[in-house]
């Protein structure tokens, strides 16, 4: 019995180690953060050397990159997109808007804290975060996956009621 558990643990560890080298991102570009992504994935900074490539549909992607502020209309789409993705899936909050609202801190239409509505694995602070900061965020996520700590998707399933209640409060579903 113990042998089986050890084998399973080892299997998961090896899998995590391989999995972190292939992350496909869905960049949800509603705000100004989108402008920092082209330099991140093209010649100068080249995110593909870490196996990170932009993809276009939610079914194929692993990372949901939320670039910039989320207002109430886009939150609805964001939640739909997140629930369409297949686990293991990771959320990266990009820019200070996803942390505390950023320069939209007193706006009536903007959702201030992303992690009330979706489980965020990594935050990239800054307004704007430079491509180097974005790559640093990706590296942090890779490290967390390798250590088995990037469990946002599991948290979302376990605390589904909590997240749904928060979403309903804003969206009036």
């Amino acid at each position, binding site marked *: 019995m113990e042998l089986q558990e050890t084998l399973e643990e080892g299997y998961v560890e090896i899998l995590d180690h*391989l999995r972190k080298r292939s992350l496909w991102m869905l960049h949800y570009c509603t705000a100004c953060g989108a402008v920092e992504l082209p330099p991140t994935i*093209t010649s100068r900074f*080249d995110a593909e050397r870490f*196996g990170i490539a932009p993809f276009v*549909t939610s*079914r*194929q992607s692993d990372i949901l990159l939320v670039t910039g502020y989320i207002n109430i209309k886009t939150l609805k789409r964001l939640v739909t997109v997140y629930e369409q993705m*297949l686990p293991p899936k990771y959320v990266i909050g990009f820019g200070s808007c996803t942390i505390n609202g950023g320069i939209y801190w007193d706006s009536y239409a903007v959702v201030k804290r992303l992690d009330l509505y979706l489980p965020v694995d990594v935050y990239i602070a800054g307004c704007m975060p430079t491509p180097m900061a974005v790559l640093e965020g990706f590296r942090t996520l890779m490290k967390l996956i390798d250590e088995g700590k990037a469990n946002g998707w599991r948290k979302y399933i376990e605390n589904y009621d909590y997240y749904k209640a928060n979403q309903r409060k804003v969206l009036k579903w």
Partner: protein
Amino acid sequence: MVEKLVLILTPIFAFFVGIFLEGFKRKMVARIHRRYGPPLHQPLLDIIKLLSKKENISHGVMFDLGPVIFVGASILTVLFLPLPHFKQLTPYGDLIAFLYIMVIGSLGMALGAGESGNPNASIGIARALTLMLGYELPLIIAGNTLVVRYGTTDLYKFMTLQSGFNWNLFLLPLTAIAGFIATYGAMGEHPFDTVVAPQEVATGPMVEYGGKHLGLLMIGHAIQVYIETAFFTILFLGGASNIFTFILKQLGVIIVMTLFDTVFPRFRIENAVRYFWRWPTLIALLGLLIVYIGGK
């Protein structure tokens, strides 16, 4: 006995060669972009990640069967291609049978993607089948030119008849060019990538596929890369006397294809078909004429 063992091992061999060619292609594209690029085994990592997803979304039985048909048909197609010293299944099916079997994979994928109900998938399938109508014509004319020249339809004999630098690339350059463009179209590279076109139809037929389904499709795609390059190698580059020369020649085909792939934009679907029915077909017909007049 050895023949049967090789027959079983060939799909695995084809898969790994396909993975190697794909990885090489990605690295080369990166170097042309002046990037460092992903490691050579990146496609393998992608497949492992996709197959280890925890959940899958299904839209019905045909949706699940689509990737299976795609992979199965790809394996079947591989077995009808000869390897150096091994005839594989070529005694049971010649060039004409091969051209028929090559289509099954795309049809399986079309059936599977059709059930997802996503409009992007339907557009992608329509484009894939229309494009097939385009590149099949020059491919079949180019293939049949060789049949006229050698008086046989056996792919293994094609390989042995070209030994010692009697390559069709040098002897029938026009047919080889037409065959190359047609094979290139079958690979779906730029400018003929109207089928997947991420910016237009969100990867077309694959739009609803994720996780293990997409992993299977990627395995099938790796085998398809092997098939297209091996097909061109056998028909026009004289096959090979050993396995390493064979892979080297496939690598050469991929390098030339990648050079074209990185510089071209994308055709609209009607322009792609018009192009295929005009230039490669014309060149292939000219090649056929030369073989008829000039004899063997």
